C-alpha cells in the first residue's frame, strides 16, 4: 500500500482545527504518512512608480511582514500539535507561499505537483461568501484525480 501523502490547507480558523483533529485521529498510527500544512497569502499589489501610495508602502510591508510572521508561527503551532499527537518531525512539514492565483488553483497545483494522495479540507458554515467566490470544494473535486478528498465539517 502506498504511504499516504496528506495535504492540509490551513487558514487558522476553528474549522481548520477540526480538519487538523481529523488528520490526527485518522493518521497518527501510520508511521509512513507524510503531512504538509499549506497556507498561501496575498502579496501586496504592484503599484506604479509614480503612485503616492508607493511612498507609504513601507508601512504596509511592515504590517504584512508582521502578519506573515504571526501566520508562520501559527503554522508552526499546528505542526507542533501534530508532533505532540505522535507524528515524528520528518513526517510533518509546511508550505507557506505567496498566492499567485485563486485558493482553489493553488491547492490543485500543489496537490498535483506534490503527488499528494489525500487532501483534507475544512468547511466553513457560511454560505454568503460562496455566492461571490467560487466554491473551493467544487473546483478541487472537479480538478483532482486519484486523490482522496476528505472534508471535515
Amino acid at each position, binding site marked *: 500500500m502506498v504511504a499516504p501523502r496528506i495535504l492540509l490547507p490551513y487558514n487558522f480558523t476553528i474549522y481548520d482545527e477540526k480538519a487538523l483533529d481529523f488528520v490526527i485521529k485518522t493518521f497518527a498510527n501510520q508511521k509512513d504518512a507524510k503531512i504538509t500544512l499549506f497556507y498561501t497569502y*496575498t502579496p501586496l499589489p504592484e503599484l*506604479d512608480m509614480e503612485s503616492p501610495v508607493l511612498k507609504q508602502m513601507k508601512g504596509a510591508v511592515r504590517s504584512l511582514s508582521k*502578519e506573515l510572521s*504571526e501566520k508562520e508561527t501559527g503554522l508552526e503551532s499546528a505542526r507542533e500539535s501534530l508532533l505532540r499527537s505522535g507524528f515524528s518531525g520528518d513526517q510533518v512539514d509546511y508550505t507557506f507561499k505567496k*498566492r499567485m492565483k485563486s485558493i*482553489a488553483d493553488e491547492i490543485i497545483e500543489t496537490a498535483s505537483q506534490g503527488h499528494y494522495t489525500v487532501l483534507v479540507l475544512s468547511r*466553513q458554515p457560511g454560505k454568503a461568501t460562496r*455566492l461571490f467566490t*467560487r466554491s473551493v470544494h467544487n473546483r478541487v473535486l472537479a480538478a483532482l484525480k486519484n486523490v482522496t478528498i476528505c472534508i471535515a465539517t
Partner: protein
Amino acid sequence: MSSEVKITIETFKTVTKAIAQSDNLDIMANHLAQLLVTALDIKGCAIFVQDPDIKELEILASFGLSPKYLSKGPLLADMSLAANLKGEPVIVADVSKDKNIQYPEEARKEGIAAILSVPIVFLNEVLGALRLYHYETWQISEQDLDSLHLLAEHVGLVMTYTRLLNAIQSITEVINLALPTDLLPGLKKG
C-alpha cells in the same frame, strides 16, 4: 485625533486601479484592504459579505487584524454597527465609549480604538460592509468618508459581477459535462 484628508485623488486612482486589475474577488478584496490600511495609516481593514437570510457577516478579506480577533465569534449585522443594514455608514470614533459594537473587549485587546464601517450596497441591497480599524481615536474627514463610500460602491459592483459570472460558469460547467462540445470556451477558466 485628526480629520485631515488622506485619500487624495491620486490615492483613489491607485486603489481603483488595483481593484480593476484583479480578476479574482478574493485577491481584489485583499489588495483593497492592504491599500486602505497603507493610505490611511490605520491598524487594519476587513471586507465582509452579509448573509441575507440570517443577517450575519462573513469575512471575505482582511489585513492587519490577528486570526484571534477575526475568529472572535459570529458577527450579527443587527448587533454590530447596525445602521449599516439601512445602508448608512457607522463611525465609532472611540470604541471605549460606544455601545454600537458587538465585541468591545476583543477590540480593546486587539488594540483597536476606533472603527468605521461603510455598507457595501448595490441597487439598494446591502451586500456587505467595508470596515476600517484605527489604533487611535479617529475623526475621519468628510472627503475621506465620501471616497470610502465610492470605493464601497465599486466593491458592490465587482461583487455583483462576480456573482453573475460564477452563476454563468456553473451553468457552463453543467452544459459542458452534459454535451461533448465546448459551448462557451471563454468561460471555462475559473
